[in-house]
């Protein structure tokens, strides 16, 4: 059971369909594991339905319904047949394959590896990166420019705000300087959506600055 959840405003933007794909992916991955937030989103979807109902209505073209029937009649495959509900691949598997440990990771400072997957989301303004901290490893202290939305995909990390386990959701911004440590016996892998690059705060590590290009 996850302990760190998205806030209601973010879930509302998700329900309204207004989040970018990378942000929606973070929310989806959390929802898939969190019944508490799923039920919040269900309620927000109902709010969307009620809003749609209470707004003005606009008449459709006279021929609209006939067109629809013509389309249905001309395409028998579109008859409602029970779609086989095969277990769907998680969006993560579709995107990254079965083993997120086995990716072309790029080793950065000591314990940190990164993999930039921004190009998997064409047309987005945000950077999307996977970060891996080896079990027991430490990341250099850093703050964030803009905001960074992160979901833990594997393992856990801890910083001064607490412990973040698998599927926990966290948003960090300019005020949050942190120095995460991977806890537990697994490497900690996170997926982050960055509205702007991070900024290292240590004097020495600033020179190495892996996240700023």
């Amino acid at each position, binding site marked *: 059971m996850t302990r760190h959840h998205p806030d209601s405003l973010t879930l509302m933007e998700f329900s309204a369909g207004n989040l970018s794909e990378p942000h929606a992916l973070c929310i989806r991955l959390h929802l898939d594991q969190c019944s508490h937030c799923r039920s919040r989103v269900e309620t927000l979807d109902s709010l969307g339905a009620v809003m749609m109902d209470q707004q003005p209505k606009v008449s459709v073209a006279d021929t609209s*319904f006939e067109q629809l029937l013509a389309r*249905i009649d001309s395409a028998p495959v579109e008859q*409602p047949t029970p779609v086989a*509900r095969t277990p*769907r691949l998680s969006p993560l598997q*579709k995107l990254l394959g079965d083993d997120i440990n086995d990716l072309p990771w790029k080793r950065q400072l000591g314990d940190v590896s990164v993999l930039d997957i921004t190009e998997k989301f064409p047309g987005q303004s945000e950077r999307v990166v996977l970060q891996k901290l080896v079990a027991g490893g430490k990341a250099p202290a850093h703050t964030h420019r803009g905001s960074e939305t992160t979901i833990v995909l594997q393992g856990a990390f801890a910083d001064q705000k607490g412990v973040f386990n698998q599927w926990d959701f966290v948003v960090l911004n300019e005020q949050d300087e942190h120095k995460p440590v991977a806890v537990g016996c697994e490497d900690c892998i996170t997926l982050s959506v960055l509205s702007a690059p991070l900024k290292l705060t240590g004097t020495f590590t600033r020179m190495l600055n892996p996240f700023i290009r």
Partner: protein
Amino acid sequence: MMMTVQSSNHATVKERPVTTLEQQKTKPEGRKDPWGPLLEKVGKTQDRAAYHSLFEHFAPQIKYYAISNGMANHAEELVQEVFISIWRRSCLYDWRKAAASTWIFTIARNQRIDMLRKMQRSSAEMAIETEDLWQIPGDNEDEPVTSLHRLMSERRIRESLSLLPEEQITVIAKVYMEHKSHQMVADELQIPLGTVKSRVRLALNKLKVILQDQNV
């Protein structure tokens, strides 16, 4: 055991005094979702009369939804796509998992997202489908049924919404109907982002939609 329970319930209903029934009737209508059974008819028997009733009610809503979302040139097309999707998926509709209007809203939202995505890029570029990210209620078979919660919540939202100040409804409407982020709403209304967020939070609290932003 089951039989006993059922028949005793049945007896209670029969014996209930008329006054109690009257009192129940004064509660706002909506104990039952009027559109759910129609949707089920479409799913089970491809009932075109039921499909037409759904179209008459929801198509004008969806057309407005498209226009307010800045898709005036594609509004009819969105209506068509949403209703084709309703036809094809109606056999998966489960009234215990979502009120029909909620289910239809999620389809409209997804078709809007899908249409915009397809305008922006080729399908080869889309590793993830819209519905991998935004699911339709009932698609996930493993999901436990939470019918009472769902049906209650939609009715409750409808009732409570009429009690909210206009400024709160305006903000929510812009988020849902105009595809605007909280920041864009703030810019448009020329009020601080914090004010927009607090209006939304106040509204959601009053709607009892969300109380728990704390860790659970």
